[in-house]
C-alpha cells in the first residue's frame, strides 16, 4: 500500500460512500428514462393529434367491416373491431394450446429416440432434429402451407381414411390372431430352448403358408376345388400330399441336429395346415364390412368425426364423476394399504377400471330411461307428433331434435359431405393445420434436444445404483431417472413454450387469422396503430407471463436441496 492512499480526500465523505453513489446512480438513470420516454410520447401524440388519431379505445366499438375466413358464428363483418380482436385471440389460443401439448409429446418421443441403441432410429431422429432446427421457421411454414397443404386434391377428390368402400375380412384372420397370441404367451421369455423355439415358429409359419396356399387355390382356381378341398380320402392328389408330408416329416429326423427343429417344425406345420384346409376345418368365409371414411383431407381443409353431447350428457357425466371420485378414493385407500403392508397393488388399473365401469353402467342406465312416446317435428310447415324412430326414418329430425331426444348421452357422427361442403363433421382449415404442424414440428426438434440432454444429465451411477438394488427398469425410470431429468428439462422447456406462443404470430405469412393478422387489419383500417400495437404487445405479454408462471411453479417443485 502506498502512503498517498491514506491522505484525506478533498471530496466529502458521503460522496465517496458506495451505497450513496448507487442510489444516486439509479435516480439519475430513472430521471433520464422518464424524460426520454415522455419526450417521445409527447411527440408521437402531437403528431397523431394533428391527424385526428389520438390513441383511445373508443374505436373498438366501430364496425369492423371485413370478413374473417372460418370465423365463429358470433362474428360477421358487421361486428365491432373489439369482436374481431377477440376472434384473433381465440384463433391464437387455439393454435398455441394444441401446439404446446403436441410439441411436448412429439419432442419427448424424438428425444428418447435420440438416445436409442438402434442406429437407424437414432440417426433418423438426429437428422430430423438438425434439419428442423437449422432452417428458419418462416421457410418451414411456407413449405407446410404452399407445398404440403395446397398440393392436396380438390374437395370432391379428397383423400379419405380409411378409404371408402367395402372390405372382406376372412374369418381365418381371427384364427391367426389367436394362434399368434398363444405362441407369444408360450414363448414370451424364450425359456424353451432353441430347438423347440425353432420348431414352433417354423411350424406355425409353414402351417399359415399352407393354409393361405390352400385358400388361394380354392378361391382362384375353381378346377382345383374338387381335388384340393373336398375332404375325400380317396382323392389321388390328397394321397400324394399325405405321402410327401410323411416323407418330409420322417426325413427331418435325418438332418443335422442344429437344423432338425426347423425342418421338423416346418414339415409338421405344413402337413397340419394342408389337413385343416382339406377337411374344411377353417371356414372359407369372410366378414363383409362397409367402410365410411372418418377422415378427409382436401385443399379446402380437413374433416374429422364429430362428437356431440345430447340432453342426457349431464346425467351421464354425473355417473362418470362418481366413478372418478370412487377411483380417487380407491387410489388413496390402496396407497395406504401398500404403505402399511407393503403389498403392491396395481392401483392405477383399479382406478381406471372404476371409471370405465361407472361410465358403462351410466351409459346403460341413462340410455334406458324412457323417451317421450312421440315428439313434435315439423312436417310440411306443420308441427306433428310421431315416435322418434318414425321421424328419423322420415328424415324429419333436425340436429337440435336429435340432441334433444336421442337416448344416448353422446352422438358420434362420421363426416358426411355433399358435392360442395360437409354437412356433418368437425372441419379444420388448411391454414390452421399448416401453422399448427409447422410450430409443432419446429418446436419438437428443440424439445427433443432438451429431453435428450436432461436424461443424459443424470449420472450413469444413478442407474447403476438403482439396478444394483434390484429395481426394475420401469421403477428406475419412474423413481430415479425422470425426477432428476425433469429438473434439468423444465426451465428450457418453458422457454420453448414461450417461443412457440410468440412464433405463432408468423401466422400472418400464411394468412391464418390470428391475433396479429387481425390486429394488423384493424390498424390499417382504423389508423389506430399505437393502440393496436400496445394491445397486441400486452396480449402476448399476458400469454407469456401465464406460461412462465406455470413453468416456474413446476420448476420449484423439482428443485434439489443441496445445503
Amino acid at each position, binding site marked *: 500500500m502506498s502512503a498517498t492512499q491514506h491522505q484525506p480526500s478533498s471530496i466529502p465523505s458521503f460522496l465517496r460512500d458506495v451505497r450513496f453513489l448507487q442510489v444516486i446512480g439509479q435516480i439519475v438513470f430513472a430521471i433520464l428514462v422518464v424524460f426520454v420516454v415522455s419526450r417521445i410520447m409527447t411527440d408521437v401524440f402531437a403528431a397523431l393529434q394533428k391527424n385526428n388519431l389520438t390513441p383511445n379505445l373508443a374505436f373498438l366499438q366501430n364496425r369492423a367491416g371485413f370478413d374473417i375466413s372460418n370465423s365463429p358464428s358470433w362474428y360477421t363483418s358487421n361486428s365491432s373491431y373489439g369482436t374481431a380482436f377477440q376472434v384473433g385471440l381465440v384463433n391464437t389460443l387455439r393454435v398455441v394450446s394444441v401446439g404446446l401439448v403436441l410439441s411436448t409429446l412429439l419432442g419427448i418421443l424424438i428425444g428418447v429416440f435420440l438416445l436409442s441403441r438402434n442406429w437407424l432410429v437414432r440417426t433418423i431422429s438426429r437428422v430430423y432434429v438438425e434439419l428442423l432446427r437449422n432452417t428458419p421457421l418462416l421457410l418451414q411454414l411456407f413449405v407446410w402451407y404452399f407445398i404440403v397443404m395446397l398440393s392436396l386434391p380438390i374437395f370432391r377428390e379428397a383423400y379419405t381414411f380409411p378409404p371408402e368402400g367395402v372390405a372382406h375380412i376372412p374369418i381365418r384372420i381371427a384364427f391367426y390372431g389367436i394362434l399368434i397370441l398363444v405362441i407369444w404367451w408360450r414363448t414370451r421369455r424364450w425359456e424353451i430352448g432353441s430347438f423347440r423355439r425353432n420348431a414352433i415358429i417354423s411350424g406355425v409359419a409353414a402351417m399359415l403358408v399352407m393354409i393361405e396356399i390352400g385358400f388361394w387355390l380354392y378361391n382362384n382356381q375353381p378346377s382345383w376345388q374338387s381335388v384340393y378341398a373336398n375332404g375325400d380320402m380317396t382323392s389321388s392328389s390328397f394321397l400324394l400330399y399325405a405321402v410327401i408330408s410323411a416323407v418330409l416329416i420322417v426325413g427331418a429326423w435325418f438332418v443335422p441336429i442344429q437344423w432338425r427343429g426347423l425342418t421338423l417344425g416346418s414339415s409338421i406345420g405344413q402337413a397340419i395346415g394342408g389337413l385343416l384346409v382339406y377337411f374344411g376345418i377353417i371356414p372359407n368365409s369372410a366378414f363383409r364390412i362397409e367402410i365410411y371414411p372418418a377422415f378427409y383431407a382436401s385443399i379446402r381443409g380437413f374433416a374429422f368425426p364429430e362428437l356431440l353431447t345430447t340432453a342426457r350428457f349431464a346425467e351421464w357425466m354425473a355417473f362418470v364423476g362418481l366413478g372418478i371420485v370412487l377411483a380417487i378414493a380407491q387410489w388413496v385407500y390402496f396407497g395406504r394399504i401398500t404403505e402399511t403392508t*407393503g403389498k403392491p397393488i396395481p392401483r392405477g388399473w383399479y382406478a381406471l377400471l372404476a371409471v370405465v365401469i361407472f361410465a358403462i353402467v351410466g351409459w346403460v342406465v341413462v340410455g334406458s330411461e324412457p323417451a317421450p312416446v312421440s315428439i313434435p317435428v315439423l312436417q310440411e310447415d306443420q308441427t306433428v307428433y310421431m315416435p322418434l324412430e318414425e321421424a328419423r326414418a322420415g328424415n324429419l329430425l333436425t340436429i337440435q331434435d336429435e340432441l334433444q331426444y336421442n337416448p344416448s348421452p353422446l352422438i358420434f357422427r362420421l363426416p358426411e359431405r355433399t358435392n360442395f361442403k360437409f354437412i356433418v363433421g368437425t372441419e379444420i382449415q388448411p391454414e390452421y393445420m399448416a401453422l399448427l404442424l409447422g410450430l409443432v414440428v419446429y418446436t419438437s426438434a428443440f424439445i427433443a434436444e432438451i429431453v435428450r440432454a436432461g436424461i443424459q444429465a443424470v449420472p450413469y451411477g444413478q442407474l447403476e*445404483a438403482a439396478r444394483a*438394488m*434390484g*429395481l426394475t427398469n420401469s421403477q428406475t425410470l419412474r423413481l430415479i431417472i425422470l425426477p432428476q431429468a425433469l*429438473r434439468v428439462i423444465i426451465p428450457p422447456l418453458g422457454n420453448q413454450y414461450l417461443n412457440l406462443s410468440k412464433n405463432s404470430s408468423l401466422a400472418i405469412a400464411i394468412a391464418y387469422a390470428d391475433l396479429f393478422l387481425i390486429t394488423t387489419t384493424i390498424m390499417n383500417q382504423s389508423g389506430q396503430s399505437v393502440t393496436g400495437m400496445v394491445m397486441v404487445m400486452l396480449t402476448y405479454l399476458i400469454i407469456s407471463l401465464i406460461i412462465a408462471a406455470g413453468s416456474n411453479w413446476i420448476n420449484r417443485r423439482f428443485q434439489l436441496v*443441496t445445503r
Partner: protein
Amino acid sequence: MVNANIQNEEAIIVCKNVCKWFGEFQVLRDVSVEVQPQEVVVIIGPSGSGKSTFIRCINRLEEHQEGQIVVDGMEMGHDVSNIAAIRREIGMVFQQFNLFPHLTVLQNITLAPMRVRHWSREKAETKAMELLNRVGIPEQANKYPGQLSGGQQQRVAIARALAMEPKIMLFDEPTSALDPEMIKEVLDVMKELAQSGMTMLVVTHEMGFAREVADRVLFFDQGRIVEQGTPDYFFESAQHPRTKLFLSQIL
C-alpha cells in the same frame, strides 16, 4: 446350460473361467474364484487390472461373455428373473456413493425395501433407523445427500445397501473418493460389518484394512488373479514378482 459340475454346497459365489472383453481388449481372463459364506475377500491390484469389472460382473452391472458366475445357487445369465433375484441378495457400495440426490437419506434407504421387497413403510423405516444408528448418523435421516459430508454419504450408502438384508456385500473402492479424515469412519463401519459375519468382496487400496479384516486377499493384474492367500501370506511372503513389485510400490 449345465452347472452341476461346479456346484459347491459351501460356496456362496462360484466364478469359473470368467472372461470379458471391452471391444478387442480383454479385461478378464479366466477368473475362477469361490467365496464361502461369511468370508471377507479383499481384491487389490493396479488400476486397469479388472478388479472393479470383476465385482461388477457378480451383480451384472457388467456382462461377462464367457464362463459361469453362480451366486447363492442361481446362475447369472440372460434370465431376467435370475438377475433380479441375485441383485436382491447382493448389496453394492460405489466409489462415488451414487445416493439419489432428490430423495432424503431415509427415502434413499427405504426405497428398495419398499419397492423390491414389498415391506410396509413402518417396517422399512424402522429398519432404516436401526441401520443409521449402526453407521452412526441417525440425526441425518431427514436431510438430503447434498447436505452431508462425503464420509456421511458413504455411510448412508452402506446403510442403503444393508437395508435389503443382502447375503453378500460388494464394495467398489468405497474410500477412494473420500478426504483422508473421513476414510476411517467408513472403514470402521466396514470392519464392524465384517465382524458381524457378512460375506464381503472389497476392492480397495487400503492395505491396513486388508491386513486387519480380510480372510483372503486376491491380487489382480491384467485381468488375471496372479496370486491369492491370507493377508499374512500375502503381505509377508508373496511369491509372484508382479505382486512383489506392486507391494514394494505401495507399502
